[in-house]
């Protein structure tokens, strides 16, 4: 075991993993975090806690992660390269681990231009690839990036994101290979709507033997409305929403679009369970946490395994 986190144990034991996501509040309410966490408890193996998602200031990811631990859930501490240099990152990792955080997701982060402080200085001292490599070094070699020894190194299960859809498509699988070389243990993909392209990407990853070296969790976000689908297609960088998906939602008729969105998500999850190279699903039901129990139930991923 690299970290002994619940997520690692579930994956190691060969179970189909199911992870969730929680966005911390734009304020100090711990209750807000607890309320959202209650919907996820028992329904997922770990919960991603976003880090100033879309470059908007929120409660620190590590802090909300601690609230999750108090509530008996396992956090997946997200860290972006936009807001901290290598000193701050490493000290946060030490502190987070000291408080019982065992999973991390290493990301470049959305550009500050998208957020609520568009003219802030983006740090990007290191990039997501270098962050993965730094955490691995801290864990496996017990050394800081600068080379000094760490007393009691942090044992972190290292995650990263992958976008199977962005152009150049041929490069995507090589980028995955690069993250594996850097030291990633698990991958959570961008939300998948274009199943055909995803199947092709995972086939390439299988052919290159990459899926034997890393656990891939397929990203699923149920569409709540036609407007959301259109917005994601047009406005969210790196998102691939085929027209058929939008048509399918439109076809559902008034008042039934969200239901159709959940149905589509459940069908996807069924397919991922059977897909070679996919080790689980990462459900990003942002601001829809209260629907997670129902989705988990209908996707037949309950009860979640308990692994010692």
């Amino acid at each position, binding site marked *: 075991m690299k970290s002994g986190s619940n997520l690692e144990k579930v994956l190691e034991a060969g179970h189909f993993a199911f992870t969730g996501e929680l966005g911390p509040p734009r304020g100090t309410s711990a209750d807000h975090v607890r309320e959202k966490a209650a919907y996820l408890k028992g329904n997922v193996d770990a919960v991603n806690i976003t880090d100033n998602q879309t470059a908007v200031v929120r409660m620190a990811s590590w802090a909300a992660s601690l609230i999750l631990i108090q509530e008996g859930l396992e956090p997946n501490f997200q860290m972006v390269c936009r807001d901290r240099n290598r000193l701050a990152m490493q000290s946060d990792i030490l502190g987070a681990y000291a408080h019982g955080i065992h999973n991390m997701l290493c990301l470049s982060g959305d550009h500050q231009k998208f957020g609520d402080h568009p003219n802030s200085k*983006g740090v990007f*001292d290191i*990039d997501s690839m270098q962050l993965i490599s730094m955490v691995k070094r801290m864990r496996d070699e017990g050394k800081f990036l600068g080379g000094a020894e760490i007393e009691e190194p942090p044992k972190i299960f290292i995650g990263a994101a992958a976008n199977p859809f962005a152009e150049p498509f041929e490069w995507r699988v090589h980028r995955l290979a690069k993250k594996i070389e850097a030291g990633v243990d698990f991958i959570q993909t961008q939300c998948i709507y274009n199943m055909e392209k995803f199947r092709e990407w995972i086939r390439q990853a299988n052919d290159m033997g990459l899926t034997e070296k890393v656990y891939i969790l397929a990203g699923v976000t149920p569409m709540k409305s036609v407007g959301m689908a259109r917005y994601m297609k047009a406005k969210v960088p790196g998102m691939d929403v085929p027209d058929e998906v939008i048509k399918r939602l439109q076809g559902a008729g008034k008042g039934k679009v969200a239901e159709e969105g959940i149905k589509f998500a459940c069908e996807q999850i069924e397919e991922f369970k059977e897909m070679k190279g996919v080790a689980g699903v990462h459900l990003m039901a942002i601001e829809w946490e209260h629907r997670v129990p129902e989705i988990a139930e209908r996707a037949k991923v309950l009860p979640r395994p308990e692994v010692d």
Partner: protein
Amino acid sequence: MIVAKRKPFEEIKNLLKDYKKVLNVGCGTCVAVCLVGGEKEVDVLNAELDMARKLEDNPIELGACTVERQCDREYLAELDDKVKDYDAVLSMACGVGVQFLAERFPDIPVFPAVDTSGLAVNQAVGWYEERCRSCSSCVLGLTGGICPVTMCAKGLYNGPCGGTNNGSCEVDIDQPCAWYMIYERLQRQGRLDVIKQLHQAVEWQNQVPRTLIQPGYKKPEE
């Protein structure tokens, strides 16, 4: 070359509001080529300032002088006699030139008239694009001659990020994704292997003021 753009007129006027005699010094090199701080621009700015101050009933006496290069000591000597007659200097050079003037004339205030914006190429008349952030450890040999430090909005060394959008950068549809271009160029040259390697964390060289002495000019060790 170094490119710059003129500061908003109100800002310049405000910087000079307490001075009656100001020498406006242009620079004949980069900022003249990028049409912001050469002889012509000095005259235009002086005319505007003259007019504005007259309207405010607070006339200003303006001198004009454009030197070959404000970043080179040998061209500053000609200013020594002139500056004495003024109570402030306005420089239309890049930030380097402004500082070199301020250093040479420490007894009077030297104000900038332009905002220096970078090292750029000339794409067409009046159109400049930044290409280098002078990082002191050039990676162009690994990136197909395209600078990720400058051209990638996140300065990534292992791009592209997940936001790359059919060749555009996530921050702006009109801004090409540097890493998309790097990929295409290296693919064309059959050199994609270069970016399949992990580029390790950068040892930043530009976090303290840098001094450069070319090898042939170093003092021999005692």
